[in-house]
């Protein structure tokens, strides 16, 4: 099942249906149960994962055993550890299925081949990388300088439906705040925005 990825390529990479069929003929998909690990920290994994359906998270565990969520990957997102997938070094992060998740397995050779054959794909891939770096810069800045409220407001803009799909502690972990601060932010928003029916 790689229908979503094909649709994604058609919409974002400007490839024709025939080009997409040729390009993706050898791609594999895989389905993971909720709680399954796609990658454990310390392992090497040759793949980036494109999420067809479901939800992934990548995270680290610090010396005290606390989890820090780096990224969520709902439908149409890529989740990967670059050290592992591109540089073939041991991964810094673990990747886990938060829901039952089907992913397309994409390796560096696929990206190279596609870029060599299709200039549109190369331009798309570069733009995607630039955009990814831009998002990372924004995320670093938010983590260093933004209030809990600003972080939360940015989160619901980026991932609107995740508030319905993951527990509060995961959102707090992603935002780098305590679950108590997240509750305070949500309570404050509700105080200002609650619209009871009169």
């Amino acid at each position, binding site marked *: 099942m790689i229908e979503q990825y094909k649709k994604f390529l058609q919409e974002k990479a400007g490839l024709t249906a025939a080009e997409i069929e040729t390009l993706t003929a050898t791609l594999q998909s895989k389905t993971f149960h909720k709680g399954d690990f796609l990658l454990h920290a310390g392992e090497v994994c040759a793949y980036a994962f494109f999420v067809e359906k479901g939800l992934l998270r990548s995270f680290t565990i610090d010396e005290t055993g606390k989890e820090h969520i780096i990224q969520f990957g709902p439908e149409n997102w890529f989740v990967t550890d670059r050290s592992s997938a591109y540089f073939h070094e041991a991964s810094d992060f673990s990747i886990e299925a938060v829901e039952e998740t089907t992913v397309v397995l994409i390796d560096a050779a696929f990206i190279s081949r596609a870029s060599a054959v299709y200039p549109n794909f190369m331009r798309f891939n570069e733009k995607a990388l630039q955009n990814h770096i831009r998002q990372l810069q924004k995320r670093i800045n938010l983590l260093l300088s933004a209030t809990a409220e600003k972080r939360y407001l940015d989160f*619901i803009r980026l991932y609107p439906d995740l508030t319905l799909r993951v527990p509060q502690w995961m959102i707090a972990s992603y935002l780098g705040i305590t679950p108590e601060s997240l509750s305070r932010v949500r309570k404050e928003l509700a105080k*200002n925005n609650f619209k009871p029916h009169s």
Partner: protein
Amino acid sequence: MKTRSIEVIVPPPAPHYVGDGFRVHNFIPSGYHLDMHRMTPFIMMDYNSKFVFPPSAQPKGVGVHPHRGFETVTLAYKGKVAHHDSAGNSGVIGEGDVQWMTAASGILHKEYHEEAFSKTGGEFQMVQLWVNLPAKDKLSKPKYQGLTHEGIGKFELPDNAGVIEVIAGQYQEVKGVASTFSPVHLQNAKLNKGGKAAFNFPSHYNTALLVIEGSVNVNGTEAAETDHFVLFENDGEAFTIEALETSVVLVLSGEPINEPIAAQGPFVMNTRQEIVQAIDDYNQGEFGYLD
């Protein structure tokens, strides 16, 4: 009056947990026979078949979550459920009681095993239905109808056959206590062994049975066992059930709401745009706050 025939008898699907307190078989929406349109206005049915929960100091249940666009109807057959919502309402649904919650424009709530029940543990058996709202009522004011077992109208069947408890709609001259936004019949048929009951609903009403206890013969032709779901065709008005042993059967029948359905998680609206709006309103705190 034509007999309504059976389309399919569905055995209980493999159970899954909703939160940690509800071990449910999901009959609707599922598969070919029972998507949200097939049984409209009944768009979701989770059935916690009889299950013994061990004692727990911490009540099990489902944490805070929102709803918009429909009604949740909770029927407690065994055990007790406590609920709280963002409008400050709370209460307990005891055995035989029914809670009819109109989420409509939006509510946040949580549902847990009632504290004393949780401490002792015991048999737990519940049905939760989602009843769709017509588009014009989806953003109406949320409300509750807490229907106690005592307050639910009962029709005594002749010949000691049993009793029909009319939660919504009508059976003979007994009217249901629940007020509904579209025509809905929801009734518990509690039949003694050999007891027989006849039902009659307009043929275009989507109609089904859930066998809560015992086993019954439907239309004198097919037997339905405990925990099985009987979906009727829309080819007639009348059907009968006869108890092969002491039985309890939930009878559902409703006028279809033939409007588009856009559903995601706890929101059921008519368009994708309304779902996006619901998620945004929820994220921005418009449904209020609940710890």
